């Protein structure tokens, strides 16, 4: 039986709404935390899906933006909880525990980093692009390790979760609600972007950059804009992830995390709206359930990934819909 992708998308959203509510009623807060983790990873992967799925750019350094978002949250919250001034060279400021401000800072800083990395790396393509983005990710990783002021290799703990007006963010269901709402917003943005002239031009750039130039579009500018937007969204996810764990560490910059984000997209379906969401849910479920059985759960994940790449190039959504390409 072949399913319509819209039904799958609807079912996923319904599941993401219903399951935490069930967990709340059944008094299973850990399930809500697991789902929050899945939703945040999905958010990061939706960001990556803009460059990977629409633009065809295999960025192996998106953990850099995830980490920058995480550290933006960590640093602001650290200064707020220790009542110390944050020295920015030209001026000093206070930290904050206010989530919207933290998100804005996380998105701006990761977007700025993405514009710098993009300007240099987007001049290359293929394996060189993969390598240069990986190199940037590793640069941030080693910088964070040596950043003693903010915990160095040990990372930075935040004692209390940040605030959101009108909500008790320490309650798992309420924090989940925030993350889910942000995921829905970003999914709506992704859907709109994909169908917009910008998204279509970006898709066309993936297929043939030279041809795009002959219709008056600048492929470099298109790719850079997409890269910055993607970096900012991944940075937002990083801030939420750090808030979920109340902890930031250099592992948020690790190349393994960059790889995991790619894996999430491949599992769900590259370039598909809900591909990263399905991938993140499957990944977190495997990590939890298989992780309880064996420490070597990554082996099973590898087998699943291998099967998807070999037999279902459109990811799980492709298998269910019978359509390989993301384009319906």
């Amino acid at each position, binding site marked *: 039986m072949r399913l319509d992708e819209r039904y799958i998308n609807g079912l996923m959203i319904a599941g993401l709404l219903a399951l935490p509510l069930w967990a709340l009623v059944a008094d299973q807060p850990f399930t809500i935390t697991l789902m929050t983790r899945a939703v945040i990873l999905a958010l990061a992967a939706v960001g990556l899906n803009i460059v990977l799925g629409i633009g065809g750019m295999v960025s192996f350094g998106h953990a850099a933006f995830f980490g920058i978002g995480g550290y933006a949250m960590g640093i602001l919250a650290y200064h707020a909880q220790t009542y110390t001034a944050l020295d920015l060279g030209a001026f000093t400021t206070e930290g904050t525990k206010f989530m919207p401000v933290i998100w804005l800072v996380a998105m701006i800083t990761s977007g700025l980093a993405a514009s710098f990395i993009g300007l240099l790396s987007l001049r290359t393509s293929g394996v060189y692009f993969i390598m240069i983005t990986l190199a940037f990710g590793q640069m941030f990783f080693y910088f964070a390790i040596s950043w003693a002021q903010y915990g160095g290799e040990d990372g930075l703990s935040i004692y209390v979760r940040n605030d959101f007006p009108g909500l008790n963010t320490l309650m798992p269901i309420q924090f989940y609600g925030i993350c889910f709402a942000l995921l829905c917003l970003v999914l709506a943005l992704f859907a709109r972007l994909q169908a917009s*002239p910008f998204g*279509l*031009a970006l*898709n*066309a750039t993936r*297929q*043939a950059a*030279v*041809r*795009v*130039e*002959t*219709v*008056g*579009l*600048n*492929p470099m500018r298109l790719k850079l804009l997409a890269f910055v937007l993607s970096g900012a969204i991944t940075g937002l996810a990083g801030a939420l992830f750090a808030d979920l764990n109340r902890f930031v560490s250099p592992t948020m910059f690790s190349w393994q995390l960059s790889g995991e984000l790619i894996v999430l997209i491949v599992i769900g379906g590259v370039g598909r709206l809900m591909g990263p969401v399905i991938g993140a849910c499957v990944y977190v479920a495997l990590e939890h359930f298989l992780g309880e059985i064996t420490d070597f759960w990554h082996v099973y994940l590898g087998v699943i990934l291998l099967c998807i790449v070999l037999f279902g190039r459109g990811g799980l959504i492709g298998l269910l819909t019978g359509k390989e*390409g993301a*384009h319906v």
Partner: protein
Amino acid sequence: MTLLRIENLTASYGVSQALFGVDLEMAQGEVTALMGRNGMGKSTTVKAICRMIRSEGVLTLDGQDLHTLPSHKVARKGVGLVPEGRRCFADLTVRENLIAAARSGDWTLRRVTELLPRLGERQGQRAASLSGGEQQMLAIGRALMTNPRLLILDEATEGLAPIVRQEIWAALRRLKQETNVAILLIDKSLKELAAVSDRAVILERGRTVWSGAMGALTHDITGKYLGV
């Protein structure tokens, strides 16, 4: 008034020189046939106009030197290209191919599908699943969506069924009658070129060897330079 002006244009692929002195002038609304045997520099001239290869000499559009512009800015100045071999964005639908290229102006989705009705019938179909002729029409439609002042068609009817070729030629005739777009045509069909073009320019070994009104093109000239 002169729209496109080319004087003594030279161009090379690495160390191999392909153009040795091309001269060509086009006015707004004029249809010019760029002719010559295979390998004489027609497509290279097109690439030079679109800044897809480096060239030297005079190359201006409305008096502006195109040499100072990158390829995408030349297109924004009003040069629309229908490249050799169709080359649509295969993963996009017909409608998406057209929207991706759209720039503000008289040419809208509706007007393009009115000129090329087949595109209207297949708006939701992926470009990769279109026939060769339909892909060619899509390439023309896509170029028109950029609202060009100069439309260049490089072998637009090559390898197509006669009935599709007739459709394309009919669309070009309508374009000539109903708009003020200048059209630079490269095609193997001398008969069709003669029917639609105002002027002709013949290239031989990367040089302009003859140019003038289409009516002045005699059998002696075509026999000498085109072998027909």
